[in-house]
């Protein structure tokens, strides 16, 4: 593993601008699941845990600016949601906004906060996310799910997100010989990991047989190939190097932040079996970090459906194209291996409160890189990668983190 570079240029802002190092100094998340609390309570739970995790303490009033990822599921507080959640958490004077990129909303919130701190404009920033999905009736959920793909053509062709990923899976099976067992092995692994995560929505293991025989949602995907609808909040504190050193002895450095977008509709993309946004964001993130897939110890990848983790393995470079299924099925990405993928349980078992997911992935890396992940700790983890996808691959944010 190559040593970290102390400073690097920021491509987004022009190669001549010197960017500051950015650390995560505190992080929190609510327990995920069907929660009785209100949206404001869930977000506040995450914010307060994040503040409390800062070694030498931090008050919300010390935060200079905030980015909150949310789809706005259900539409109750669709406007000014960022300001609402931050003021309800106790920070009415903090400049805040909602970041919306579907399921990648808070991955982009982390990125936007990172850019603000790296640029020198802000020293202490809050990034997080929130979604409350289970308060809606099933009838309403059917209208609010599937609003982030291409609505005019995909949705009105009756395609859901499980449907679009099922079509990707079908084509992947056709081109590369990926099997139902490969898909199911993702669910089995992530449920095994989720069983060790007290904040996961599903804290139980499942068998391959059970995953294979579950009811079909969108052929070839069964209900156990799909993540669930979940409530949850996530939040973290980002700080400049100087502030980070003052606030903690165990910062987690953001070595790279990268993002990419792509056509919303699967039918508009060059390939039906590759998420080009993942490829581009992953490549840029590794390049900026000066690292490669082999350097990663813990990866939180966007497994909204089992096929999505297989795609992530390939498109991030952990496996050759077509070999993602066999890689997962071999058990090589389970706890106990060099590379542990979705130690948190992933979206599959931890739950997927859309807007909260991206920051929650980074939260898991924060725990892992500080050695605080308990029974699901990847021993000696130093480098982590978070991969957050919006829609069926329209947006993607990738972060590479390193233990301080």
């Amino acid at each position, binding site marked *: 593993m190559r040593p970290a570079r102390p400073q690097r240029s920021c491509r987004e802002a022009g190669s001549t601008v010197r960017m500051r190092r950015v650390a995560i100094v505190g992080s929190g998340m609510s327990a995920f699941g069907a929660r009785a609390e209100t949206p404001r309570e869930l977000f506040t739970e995450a914010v307060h845990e994040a503040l409390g995790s800062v070694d030498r303490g931090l008050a919300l009033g010390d935060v200079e600016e905030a980015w909150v990822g949310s789809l706005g599921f259900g539409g109750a507080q669709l406007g000014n949601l960022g300001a609402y959640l931050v003021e309800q958490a106790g920070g009415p004077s903090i400049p805040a906004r909602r970041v919306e990129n579907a399921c990648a909303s808070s991955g982009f919130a982390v990125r936007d906060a990172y850019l603000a701190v790296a640029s020198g404009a802000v020293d202490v920033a809050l990034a997080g996310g929130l979604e409350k999905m289970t308060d809606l009736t099933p009838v309403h959920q059917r209208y609010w799910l599937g609003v982030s793909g291409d609505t005019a053509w995909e949705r009105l062709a009756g395609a*859901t997100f499980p449907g679009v990923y099922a079509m990707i899976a079908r084509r992947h099976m056709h081109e590369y010989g990926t099997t139902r067992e490969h898909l199911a092995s993702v669910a089995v692994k992530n449920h095994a990991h989720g069983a060790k995560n007290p904040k996961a929505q599903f804290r139980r293991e499942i068998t391959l047989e059970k995953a294979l025989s579950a009811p079909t949602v969108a052929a070839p995907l069964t209900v156990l190939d799909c993540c669930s609808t979940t409530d949850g909040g996530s939040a973290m504190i980002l700080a400049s190097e100087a502030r980070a050193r003052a606030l903690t002895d165990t910062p987690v450095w953001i070595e790279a932040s990268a993002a990419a977008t792509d056509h919303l509709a699967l039918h508009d993309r060059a390939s039906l079996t590759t998420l080009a946004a993942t490829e581009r964001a992953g490549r840029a993130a590794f390049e900026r970090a000066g690292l490669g897939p082999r350097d990663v110890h813990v990866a939180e990848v966007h497994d909204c459906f089992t096929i999505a983790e297989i795609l992530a393995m390939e498109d991030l470079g952990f496996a050759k194209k077509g070999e993602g299924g066999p890689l997962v099925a071999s058990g090589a990405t389970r706890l106990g291996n060099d590379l542990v993928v979705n130690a948190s349980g992933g979206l599959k078992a931890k739950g997927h409160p859309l807007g909260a997911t991206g920051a929650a992935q980074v939260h898991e890396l924060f725990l892992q890189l500080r050695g605080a992940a308990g029974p699901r700790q990847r021993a000696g983890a130093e480098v982590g990668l978070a991969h957050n996808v919006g829609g069926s691959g329209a947006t993607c944010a990738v972060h590479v983190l390193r233990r301080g």
Partner: protein
Amino acid sequence: MEPAILGAGLAAGKLRISADEMRRAWGHLRPRGLATKSACAWDEDAATLAVEASARALEASGADPEEIGLVAVATSGHEAASAVVAEALGLRYARLLDVGGRRTAGLAALVAAFDSARAVERPMLAVAVDVPRAAPGDPAEQAEGAGAAAFVVGPGAGARLAAAGSAAREVLGGRILDAAGVARSPDLDDVPHGLFEDALAVLGPLPPIDALVASPVGTTLPGPGGKPLAARHTLESAERRLGDLGAAQAPFDLALALADAEPGHRLVAAARDAGAVTIVHLEAVTRAAVAGVKAVADGGRPASVHQALMERGAFAAGAAIPEEPLGAYIPPATYTRDLPARYRLEASRCGACGRLAYPPPAACPACGGRAFARERLAGRAVVETFTVIGRGGSPGEFAPEQAFAGEYPVAVVRFEEGPRVTARLADVETGRIAIGLEVEPALRRLYRQQGAWRYGLKFVPTS
């Protein structure tokens, strides 16, 4: 130039209910001689059947869609399907005429097309379509079938209208629609005495005729010497296989007769309902091009009485599933702006780099150009991948459909011109779907919102 029927097209509902199934469901079967009847699948209605038959007629005729001067659509109900037909086929300059309420309306629309084509030397389109309308449990429903016949009438060779005759009398209470808008077949006694004779007198003397069709089936016309009018060939009405097609019955059987007619043959078609009779006398100058005969005979999937009623949405339980938008929502105005692409596969050819894009983009995905020429895709496509959305898993817009019709397939299809689109597949068993399946578009109902059906293209296995 004397106008003629240049081409005709047929279509029928995609469900087939056997006489045995009807006997099982009802305990009896009233219509005599019925072998099977047709009914609309969930995604069909009078408009989609009219489009299907019209597309076949237009192709058979070789007419230029933008030359069509009139679209006359006749039913026994009160749908205004002419606008959907015109949009779907690109009949951009046509006068729309919706003729409703009577069994005689189909032949009346055909005569109107001839009259228009005589006045202006352009092709005209006449369509007759009917679908089951009677309520569940109403014995009248037993007889009702779903079908459409369309004719392109214009200058050229085909079957010319030798004569047409009609007669009308007011019959109290004899309208063919009841209070609920349900078609009723009046008893023969409802036709006032002498009406046929009057209409035949207008028609003028008849030479020996080769084919005779009459609706309702079994109707006889008074002939010479007090005997019923007879023809050299006895035709079996499509009613035996498709059910009573109402306003479309006489036009449908006439199109079947035209398909069999030799040059020089004389054909007579008659329709009656309470207080109205219309009779046409055609001469097949050349062989007429009639499309869809085989597709109608071979197509359709077996269904139970119950399934057909569910797919028609005839049961009140459907009301429990909201049709109002509860989240994702595309306003009708936005939807309407896309209709050329949604109905007619209009793609965008970039004026700068020549790249063909569909669905139409705001800027060329290859070069960013914004000047486009509209270009219609041929519609030939191949399934690249697909899924089957399980019951209960659809977007909200399709929840009512899933409640009645269950799972449905969705595919990404690639057109032979290059672009791809995501679309529903129809008229195919899920077990038959495979990557590589060749498909073609068919206009169908997609979903209903705010009281209006939204139509679009699905893809069906290539015929």
